[in-house]
């Protein structure tokens, strides 16, 4: 067992998959010699060779489209989209192809494909490198969408994604790549896709967060505790399929909830969670569920991003609001 950052845990998961299954192949821009722009694939080409860790031409549709062919024909591709903002280039191959081939062929073919992609704010990237686009994929049947918030889950979820017989979008919050070290077992383990996790128990308000907003929610919970508000914090972890039972059980107990995500508010996954919880536990709700999200603008330049992003003060304000009622 070793202490690992999230990026190291991801690298380790990829190493594990490459070592144990000859069908696994990693492909993407700069994943080979360079080891990925964040070093997620550091050392893997040197160890497993040019044919298993492959630098592709600069073309996202090409990456995902060929990965589909690889997957269908017996490989287990793990494709990287260098930043999630570039995934628009391959929306057709993801949404019309990877997500539908099982359905289209009534199970005759399927696409065991993982698409990894870093995303998220707070790291002062150039334009179009920080957008949180999970909602687009949650709205696309046939896909699974997963987002770890800590090194342990990162490894376990990534191995579960590689095991999956269906396409998984694996979203990596850049801000958390090196934010925390944590015990990450050397051996293989998986964290099941489709399960949320209660990361802090509480009584009064449920905070629902995923990826980069989980640490924020925990901080806010800590601060709220000092004003005698007891927050339960749930790391949603898998956005598709959503673990609604875990979410609903908590909100049924607390009667209040705040959903926190970096993506823009309108038609974000927060809206779905509000709507689903409304359906499930309407009569337990003591106040309307609040959303703390990115604002409805394009992701802003570094000098203004902090005010735009969800933050502990914004979460505390939302907690205060749901408590007021």
């Amino acid at each position: 067992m070793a202490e690992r950052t999230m990026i190291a845990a991801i690298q380790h998961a990829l190493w594990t998959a490459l070592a144990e299954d000859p069908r696994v192949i990693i492909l993407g821009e700069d994943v080979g010699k360079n080891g990925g722009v964040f070093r997620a694939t550091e050392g893997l080409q040197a160890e497993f060779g040019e044919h298993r860790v492959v630098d592709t031409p600069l073309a996202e549709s090409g990456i995902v489209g060929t990965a589909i062919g690889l997957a269908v024909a017996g490989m287990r591709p793990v494709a990287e989209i260098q930043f999630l903002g570039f995934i628009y280039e391959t929306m057709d191959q993801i949404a019309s192809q990877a997500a539908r081939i099982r359905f289209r062929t009534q199970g005759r073919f399927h696409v065991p494909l993982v698409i990894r992609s870093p995303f998220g704010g707070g790291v002062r990237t150039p334009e179009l490198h920080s957008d949180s686009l999970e909602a687009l994929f949650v709205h696309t049947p046939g896909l699974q969408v997963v987002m770890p918030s800590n090194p342990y889950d990162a490894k376990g979820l990534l191995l579960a994604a590689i095991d999956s017989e269906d396409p998984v979008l694996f979203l990596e919050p850049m801000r958390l790549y090196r934010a925390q070290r944590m015990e990450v077992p050397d051996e293989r383990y998986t964290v099941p896709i489709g399960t949320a996790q209660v990361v802090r128990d509480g009584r009064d308000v449920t905070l629902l967060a995923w990826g980069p907003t989980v640490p924020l929610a925990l901080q806010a919970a800590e601060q709220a505790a000092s004003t005698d508000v007891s927050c339960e914090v749930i790391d949603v972890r898998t956005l598709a399929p959503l673990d609604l039972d875990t979410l609903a059980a908590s909100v049924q107990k607390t009667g209040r909830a705040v959903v926190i995500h970096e993506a823009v508010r309108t038609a974000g996954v927060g809206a779905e969670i509000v709507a689903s919880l409304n359906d499930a536990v309407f009569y337990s709700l003591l106040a309307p569920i609040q959303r703390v999200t990115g604002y409805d603008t394009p992701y802003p330049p570094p000098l203004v991003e902090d005010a735009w992003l969800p933050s502990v003060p914004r979460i505390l304000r939302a907690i205060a609001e749901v408590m007021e009622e």
Partner: protein
Amino acid sequence: MEIYRWPGEPTLHQILREDGTLAREEPPGVQDQAQAWYRFMVFCRRFDQKALNLQRQGRLGTYAPFSGQEAAQIGSFAALRRDDWVFPSYRELAGMMYHGLDPAHALLFSRGHPAAGYMPKELAMFPGQIIIGAQLLHATGAAWACKLRGEDRVAAAFFGDGATSQGDFHEALNFASVFQLPVVFFCQNNQYAISVPVTRQMATPTVAQKAIAYQIEGIRVDGNDIFAVYDAMRYAVEHARSGGGPVLIEAVTYRLGPHTTSDDPTRYRDPEVHDAWARAKDPLLRLRRWLERQGLWDEDQERAWTAEVDTRLAEATERMEQTPMPDPASVFDHVYAQMPPALRRQKQELTDLRGRV
């Protein structure tokens, strides 16, 4: 300052002239297969007609006829092995049936039946792709898998002239050439993408010259000459299978019918040009003339075979129509390997609701 530009006059690989004589020696194997090919071409031509009739009678939905392109499709599929990967477009039913798809199954696509997509286990063939150009990347990826797994299979992608405009065409040919993959890109240049003539689709006089942008080989072949198509495809498949990398083939052909049953080609087609293709250049006539010259075919055989085809088509239609109607609740069954809870709930809802109505 040297300018890189295309100097070439377009060429066209032809073996079988329009009058049924040979422009050059036929490729090996052709003598043996020509009659079977002709029979299959007749079958396909009548299949196409049958499907159009069924559509007009409301027994099929939208249908995309391939008449005029039988030589291009059958000639190219004939050069593939049964275990090669095949990624066709929606207009490849002739080729797909030649490859082994049951005609009754082929009709299910236009029927709008979910079962249409379940391709026979023994074929490594996708259903016809709707998104123009997407399948070129799948073929490239499958070829890559074959190369990595040390299999000697090739992948073939089939598409139209319009597809060459898509970014996916470019990305597929680039990946295939960079990784030297065993894939053949077979373009049926049938002169139109719906209403848009190939002269507005691209500024180049040929599709084949686009191979130069990828440092691969391009071949331009008379797509209504089944000998030449087979010859070109055999060369390309062999080239790919033996590690020579991808090949781009342009088969110059013509769609005789509408784009689909929703289309009215009189709005955009020149009747004179159409007539020329419909008469002199018809791929069936041409092969029939050659067979007749060889004493391999005559009017009696034509009549007998036509009758036989019609029986088979009637039988296929019946089987198609007897395919049980799908259970709507089955829409939930093939979204994921394991059905997530929300889908289970929705399936229950749909089932309940139908129970009530």
